[in-house]
């Protein structure tokens, strides 16, 4: 039986966690589009999921997907640079990135969108607030629009920036580790 679920996530880690909960309940992801997940109930089988941001295109992407298939990992969906991967739990663990450099790179990719959303919101907010000294000067409606939307965008942008920066910091590899152990470069 197929089911469709509409859900929006800002945090890819939380999205992955939610998908894995669905997989534990026997739901196999068969597609994703515009915030809508399509599952097929295959219980008692259980599925594991990973969201990958490989950054490949064209033949390289096809080659990578073939490589994953060969390793028992299927591509369940692809959207906006994100690739939804699944593996039947009975076929072993879904291991994608195991080197510390790769893990850190993926974590950075996952939180880069927080920073880009933050930067664009702060920029737009500041531009609106700047209108208080230009176009909106002497115009009460324009002044209120600039104050309300400018402040909202600036505050919201700052929240995204702080959240993005703190998550990037949290997922950065520990300095102590790299001082003692050889760095994994693969």
């Amino acid at each position, binding site marked *: 039986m197929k089911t469709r679920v509409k859900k929006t996530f800002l945090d890819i880690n939380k999205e992955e966690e939610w998908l894995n909960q669905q997989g534990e309940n026997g739901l196999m992801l068969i597609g994703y589009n515009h915030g809508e997940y399509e599952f097929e109930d295959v219980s008692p089988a259980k599925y594991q999921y990973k969201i*990958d941001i*490989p950054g490949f295109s064209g033949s390289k992407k096809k080659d*990578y997907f*073939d*490589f*994953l*298939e*060969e*390793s*028992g*990992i299927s591509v369940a969906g692809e959207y906006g640079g994100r690739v939804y991967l699944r593996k039947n739990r009975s076929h072993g663990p879904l*291991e*994608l*990135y*195991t*080197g510390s450099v*790769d893990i850190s790179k993926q974590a950075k990719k996952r939180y880069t969108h927080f920073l880009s959303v933050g930067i664009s919101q702060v920029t737009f907010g500041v531009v609106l607030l700047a209108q208080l000294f230009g176009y909106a000067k002497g115009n009460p409606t324009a002044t209120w629009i600039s104050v309300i939307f400018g402040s909202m965008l600036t505050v919201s942008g700052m929240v995204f920036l702080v959240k993005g920066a703190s998550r990037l910091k949290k997922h950065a590899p520990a300095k102590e580790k790299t001082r003692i152990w*050889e*760095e*994994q*470069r*693969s």
Partner: protein
Amino acid sequence: MEEGMKKAANNRALAESVYYILLCLHRPAHGYALMKDIAEMTDNRVRIGAGTLYGALDNLQKKKWIRQLDSDPRERKNEYIITDKGKEYFAMELARLEELIKHAQDVRGEGK
């Protein structure tokens, strides 16, 4: 030995995953077999995920340390093998590891 090769050998140790990939590719192998062989050989201590292995194989091919074997175009699995250049780097890493062991044995008085 090339100057660049000497410099690399003096300054850097191979990542453990790269060491095992080069070791296993002394015989032709495809990606999935490599992951399984390395996990088995190390009693599951060194496990290389598919994404990490794909990136490593790609980098090693760019460096010409390994190459893809000609395969049947209908076959999706690509087989890889170590090149002479890869063998040289692997030999340098082995020499470095042997030196480490020798120094440890000398200091601990085990080498006599």
